[in-house]
C-alpha cells in the first residue's frame, strides 16, 4: 500500500507554530544563564556550567539526531536485524564514556581546552598531530550536518512540501539564533525537542501495535517478509543475524560505532560544556533512556512492514507509518519532533566545527595573537559558513554523497582514538608514530569503503585464508594501532626526541589522591 504525500494544512500549521516557537526560544537562549557571549568559552561551550539535567537533554538531543530517527528504522525496514546494531552500539558506549570522558573533561577544564585537538596539542606538543585531529573532526562533521537537512527534507516532503526554499528558510533561522546565542540555543531547544520525541515515540509504540495486531504479529510479519527483500549488497534481509559473517559484522559495527561517537567534535562539545566529571558520570547512567527509545524507534521499521506500507524509499518508512495511523494534528507534532530534532544536533555540530576551525586552524596558523573576543567572532562567522556549506551540499549534490561521506566519517573519526583516548592515559606513543598510524588508518579505511562502492560499511577481509567480516573502521583502527605501537618502538630505538607534555597526571582526575599515585604505564 502506498501512502500519499498530500499537503496537509492541519499538520503543516502545527509544524510551523512549533518551529516558530522553537526559533523564539533560540533567540531568548542568549539571556539564559547570562555570560559574556563575546568569549569562545561562553559562546561555544555555554560557559562550561551545564549541570546534570541540562547535559542530559543536550547530549540526548546531540547524539540521537533526526537522521537517526529516520535512518535506523529505515535500515531495520530494509535489512532487518542488521539495522538493530544501533542498540548494542548505544549500550556499550556509556560504560566507555563513564570511564574515559571524565578524564577529558578534567584536563580540559584545567587547561582551558575547547576542542579535542586542543588537548592533543597540549599533550603531545605537536601542531601536526593536532591539525590532523582537527582536520578529521571537520571532515567527519560536515556530512553529518548535511544529513540533518536530509531529515528535515524527508518530513517536509511527507507533508507535501517540496522544493529548496523551506529548507533554506529553516536553516537561515537556525543559523541566526546559533550565531546569536551559541551553545545555549540548542541546549534550551533540546528540552522541547526531547519532550516531543518521547511523546511521539511512546504514543507510536502503544497505539500502532494495537492497530496492527500486537508485537507478536509485528515480528511474525517481519520474519516472513524480510527474506524476500534485497539489501544494497545483494544479500537478502534477515530477521536474525544467522551467519558467522553477519554476526561478526553486527558486533564490530556496534563496538566501532560505540568507540567512535564520543570522538566526534559535537559529542566532545557536549561533554566539555558540562560543569564537571560527576555530571558526565551521572549522565552515563541516565542517557541509556534514549537508547531504550532508539530501540523502540528501530521497531517502527517492522511496524511499517506489518502494516503493509510500501514507502517510495526506506527513508519514508516512519513518516508514511505516521501519516497512515495518526490524525493530522498528531502527525504535525511527530514531524515537528523530527525536524526540531534535526536543528539541535545541526547547531551543536556547526558550533563544534567552528570551535575546531577557530582554535586549531585560524589561531594556530593564521592569527596566533587573536584575542578571546576575536576568537569568538571568528567562530560565529564560521558557524554560519559551515551551515551554508551543508545547505549547498544538500541542494546541489545527490543525497547519496552525504550518506556515503557520513558513513566514511565514522571510519575517519575512529582513527583519532589513539591520539585522543589513549592519550588520556599514556604518553607512551610517539607523536610521529601516531601521525603515521592515523594516515594509514584514514587511507585504508577510505579504500575499503570505496572498494565496495560505499554500499556497506562492512569489509570481508581474507588474510592468507583467515576470513573475517568487520566494520571497516575497526579494521583500520587495528592497523592504525599496530603501526603506531611498532613505530613508537622504532623511534625509541633510534632515540628520536619527543616534545614536552604540558599536562600533568593530576590534571586528569578530580581525585586528590592521584597526585601521589601516578597512573601505571605513563612514560616520562
Amino acid at each position, binding site marked *: 500500500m502506498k501512502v500519499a504525500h498530500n499537503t496537509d494544512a492541519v499538520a503543516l500549521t502545527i509544524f510551523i507554530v512549533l518551529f516558530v516557537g522553537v526559533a523564539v526560544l533560540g533567540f531568548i537562549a542568549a539571556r539564559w544563564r547570562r555570560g559574556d557571549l563575546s568569549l569562545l568559552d561562553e559562546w561555544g561551550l555555554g560557559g562550561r556550567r551545564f549541570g546534570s539535567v541540562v547535559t542530559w537533554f543536550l547530549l540526548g538531543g546531540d547524539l540521537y539526531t533526526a537522521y537517526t530517527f529516520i535512518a535506523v528504522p529505515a535500515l531495520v525496514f530494509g535489512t532487518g536485524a542488521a539495522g538493530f546494531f544501533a*542498540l548494542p552500539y548505544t*549500550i556499550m558506549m556509556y*560504560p566507555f564514556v563513564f570511564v574515559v570522558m571524565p578524564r577529558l573533561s578534567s584536563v580540559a577544564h584545567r587547561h582551558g581546552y575547547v576542542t579535542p585537538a586542543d588537548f592533543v596539542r597540549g599533550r603531545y606538543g605537536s601542531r601536526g598531530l593536532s591539525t590532523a585531529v582537527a582536520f578529521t573532526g571537520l571532515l567527519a562533521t560536515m556530512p553529518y550536518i548535511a544529513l540533518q537537512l536530509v531529515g528535515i527534507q524527508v518530513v517536509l516532503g511527507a507533508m507535501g512540501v517540496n522544493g529548496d526554499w523551506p529548507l533554506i528558510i529553516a536553516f537561515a533561522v537556525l543559523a541566526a539564533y546559533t550565531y546569536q546565542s551559541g551553545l545555549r540555543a540548542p541546549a534550551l531547544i533540546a528540552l522541547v525537542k526531547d519532550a516531543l520525541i518521547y511523546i511521539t515515540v511512546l504514543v507510536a509504540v502503544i497505539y500502532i501495535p494495537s492497530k496492527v495486531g500486537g508485537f507478536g504479529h*509485528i515480528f511474525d510479519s517481519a520474519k516472513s517478509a524480510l527474506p524476500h527483500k534485497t539489501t544494497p549488497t545483494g544479500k537478502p534481509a534477515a*530477521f536474525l543475524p544467522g551467519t558467522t559473517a553477519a554476526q561478526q559484522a553486527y558486533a564490530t559495527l556496534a563496538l566501532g560505532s560505540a568507540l567512535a561517537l564520543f570522538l566526534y567534535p559535537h559529542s566532545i562539545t557536549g561533554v566539555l560544556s558540562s560543569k564537571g566529571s560527576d555530571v558526565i558520570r551521572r549522565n552515563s547512567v541516565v542517557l541509556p533512556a534514549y537508547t*531504550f527509545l532508539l530501540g523502540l524507534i528501530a521497531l517502527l521499521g517492522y511496524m511499517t512492514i506489518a502494516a503493509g506500507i510500501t514507502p517510495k524509499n526506506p527513508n519514508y518508512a516512519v513518516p508514511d507509518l505516521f501519516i497512515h495511523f495518526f490524525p493530522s494534528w498528531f502527525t504535525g507534532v511527530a514531524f515537528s519532533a523530527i525536524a526540531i530534532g534535526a536543528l539541535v544536533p545541526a547547531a551543536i555540530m556547526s558550533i563544534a566545527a567552528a570551535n575546531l576551525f577557530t582554535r586549531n586552524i585560524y589561531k594556530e596558523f593564521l592569527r596566533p595573537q587573536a584575542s578571546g573576543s576575536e576568537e569568538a567572532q571568528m567562530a560565529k562567522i564560521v558557524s554560519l559558513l559551515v551551515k551554508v556549506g551543508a545547505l549547498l551540499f544538500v541542494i546541489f549534490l545527490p543525497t547519496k554523497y552525504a550518506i556515503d561521506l557520513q558513513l566514511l566519517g565514522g571510519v575517519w573519526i575512529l582513527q583519532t582514538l589513539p591520539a585522543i583516548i589513549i592519550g588520556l592515559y599514556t604518553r607512551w606513543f610517539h607523536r610521529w608514530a601516531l601521525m603515521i598510524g592515523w594516515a594509514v588508518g584514514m587511507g585504508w579505511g577510505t579504500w575499503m569503503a570505496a572498494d565496495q562502492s560505499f554500499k556497506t560499511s562492512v569489509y570481508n577481509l581474507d588474510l592468507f585464508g583467515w576470513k573475517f567480516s568487520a566494520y571497516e573502521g575497526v579494521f583500520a583502527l587495528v592497523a592504525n594501532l599496530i603501526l603506531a605501537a611498532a613505530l613508537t618502538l622504532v623511534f625509541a630505538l633510534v632515540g628520536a626526541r619527543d616534545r614536552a607534555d604540558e599536562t600533568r597526571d593530576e590534571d586528569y582526575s578530580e581525585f586528590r589522591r592521584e597526585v601521589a599515585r601516578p597512573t601505571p604505564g605513563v612514560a616520562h
Partner: protein
Amino acid sequence: MNGSNNGRRRIWYLLLLAPFVGLLFPGWYARSDPELFGFPFFYWYQFAWVIVAAAITLVVYLLTRSERQ
C-alpha cells in the same frame, strides 16, 4: 581512606566490561526462543541489556563515589 582501600574500589570498574561480554557475541543471542511479550529472544535480550547496563553503571558510580570525594 588509605591507598590499598582505594585500589580495591577500582576493581568495581571491571563490572563495566559485562555489557561488552553480553553483547559482542551475537552467536549467543541470535535466536527466536524463548519469546517474551511477543518479542523474539534476540530483540528482548538486547532491550534488557539497556536496563542492566545502566544499572551496572549506577552501581559502579555509587561504589566508587567515596574515592572521588
